[in-house]
């Protein structure tokens, strides 16, 4: 009886905890990261600076989309790393999310502008199609397909853990023409 009880009280928690351990340590698992491949939604929105229109056809090849807003504190923390990425010739498209134009321009004036193109998504329509739940979020797009999506601040560690392996695996070549 005692042996049986001992057996039961150990087997259940051991199997439970070891399963959770393997789950967390699984390479594909990273909180906030999503590697489902999906199409880049079609859109047509104004750009932030001059009132020109940006749509899918302006964006080809491989690039990053970073969802940000001037009201987003975490975006400010993330900002420094994006500037660094930009200086390594990685094209980042900014998706200004539910933000007043003037606030956004003022924000970029105060800090540096790491974006090649900035889409002004005041109503959040493109963000909705992309499945954005908040800011900041970052998408990696290759030839019209979203191949990685990260919710939260991208920093050196997230870059190394989430984006770098995909970039290597999918042989991403950045589109420098954007």
């Amino acid at each position, binding site marked *: 009886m005692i042996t049986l009880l001992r057996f039961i009280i150990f087997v259940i928690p051991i199997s439970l905890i070891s399963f*959770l351990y393997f789950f967390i340590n*699984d390479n594909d*698992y*990273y*909180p906030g990261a999503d590697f489902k491949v999906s199409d880049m939604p079609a859109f047509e929105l104004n750009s932030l600076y001059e009132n020109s229109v940006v749509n899918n056809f302006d964006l080809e090849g491989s690039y990053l989309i970073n969802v940000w807003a001037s009201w*987003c504190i975490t975006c400010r*923390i993330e900002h420094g790393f994006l500037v660094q990425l930009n200086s390594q010739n990685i094209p980042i498209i900014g998706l200004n999310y539910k933000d007043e134009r003037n606030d956004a321009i003022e924000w970029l004036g105060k800090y540096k502008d790491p974006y090649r193109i900035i889409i002004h998504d005041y109503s*959040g329509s493109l963000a909705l199609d992309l499945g954005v739940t908040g800011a900041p979020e970052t998408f990696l797009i290759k030839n019209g397909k979203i191949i990685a999506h990260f919710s939260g601040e991208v920093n050196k560690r997230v870059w190394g853990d989430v984006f770098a392996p995909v970039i290597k695996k999918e042989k991403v070549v950045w589109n420098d023409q954007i």
Partner: protein
Amino acid sequence: MLIQIAHFLAILSTGLFLTTFVFSFLFTKKDRNITRLISRIYSHGFLMLTSSFFIYIWLALNDNFSVLYIAQHSNSQLPSFYKITSIWSAHEGSMYLWIVFLCLWGFLYSSYSPNDNILKARTIGVISLIAVGFLSFLLLTSNPFETILPIAPMDGADINPVLQDPALAIHPPMLYLGYVGFVIAFANAISFLINGDKSIKWEESIRIWSISAWVFLTVGIALGSWWAYYELGWGGYWFWDPVENVALMPWLAATAFIHSLSVSSKSQLLRIWTILLSIIVFSLSLFGAFIVRSGIIDSVHSFANDPERGLYLLSFTGLLVFSSLILFSYRLPLLTSKKLITPFSKESFISINNIIFGTLIFSTMLGILYPLIYEYLYLKKISVGAPYYNAIFVPATILACIFLFFSIDSKWQRTYRIINAYTSMFFSGIFSLAITISVMLYCVISDLWILVSLFTGLLIIIRYLFVIFEFLINKKYSNPYSIAAHIGLGLLIISISLNSQFSSERAINIKINGDDIYKDYRIKFDNLELIKMSNHDSVMASFIIDSPSGKTFVLNPEKRKYFTRGQITTETAIHATLLKDIYVTLGDQLDDGSWIVNIQFNYFIRWIWISALLMAISGSFLAFSLRGTSR
């Protein structure tokens, strides 16, 4: 400067708790003076920690946005009340509060438990160890004191609008008080197992702590359910969301635990159950913290985070659980008593119900983990929902209630002779059956499970009414708290079954000035207003509803858009009566200008919370009546 002081005080308290732990295990002789010394060090650690927490509240109140966490979750426009509650609106701050509460329970225990209690020193040691584990987790992986330097932002990012709500402001503190309150039972059990002297009677002294924690847990869960009902706009009271489930599991275990504890404190029986359950309750509380904070499950509650947190919490929880289970299994021979449980005694019924509760906990755990296992093996996401839980909970709860029914009037350690309670059992059966059948015929219910649940709920209530009756006539003593709490359970079962039978909803398309009829209620869309508020814009609709009985009332559901986060929320409008709620939410506007409006009739929903409240109130009176027993 204040930020650094608060941070430093938190680090200092970690050091003091570590000292407490080391001392309590270093000094093997447990005399009064050593115990007093250990209590004192612990209390000083607690003083440091609370001071640091109060400074943190002060920083939040004064909009110190150079603290990253405050900048991310508060805003200068918020009312002071929400500036404080924004502290527990996300991971770092709520973990901080969780730890403060953990240490608060330990502090109360150390001040109320007498110093000649031989288990006290090690109990405080165990609590300190847990505090050290979680404080290191807080300070190393989720530091709430992190600053944005050199320039602080002008304003904060605001608290999530759905959290700007009084029920939600007090829901987490209540729940946390409940979760961590079981640390006293757990630490006492561990201390008892280490000591290994089976003549020590420690169970009686921890009843008051465990029952108080149970009350907080019950209130916390009920508040969460109430909040979800009126704020999220989905209309239900329970969604079997993984995070609701991780609160339900400790509640079930705690319910089994306090029953088992009452047996052990009277007769030293069921000691194995009591100790095992005390370990299970606390482990499940820690497991809940892991599930919510590791981000492995998608839920309304999940916090954004990094993988290190999950790994730390899992390792620490695993370490605590395994070391306590190893200790438990080592001392198992000591705990087994030669005395068998008498069949048909009160403790026999309680141990049967312990098994049922264990089954429910295990099934809930499986429901939470099955999608993860499936995802791990087949790389596909599935979800386990209400049908699974209903299929398990309904029959198991009914079974548990039947055992409860037979256990009323049973005796401690004696076989109970059914003949003594024959009349009241027979008549409660007859009355319940009569009421169930008349409800069935009058309201045309054909679902067998609903009828059976209704019958079971009635059975319990009427049976307890007989007990009250016998008390009034024959002065036959019964425990009033137990009567009230179990009547609450009966009421809960009845309200849940009637709610699921009668509630209905419909989405209608309606234009301004148009009207529609739903279930004999005439609904007229009277007006639509745009309102500008300080932190949001709102579209407020106004519906005039004529009830069949001739009453007219106005409901104003809203859709709000909050500026700082761009978030859109739905504000439901509810016309509440004791029998039913009329619940209206405003959906989207269609291209032809009409609006989608969702109308729900939620029957007996108030009674679900009233019965939970009744259970909690009787628990708190019971705890109050036990004051003095902790000595």
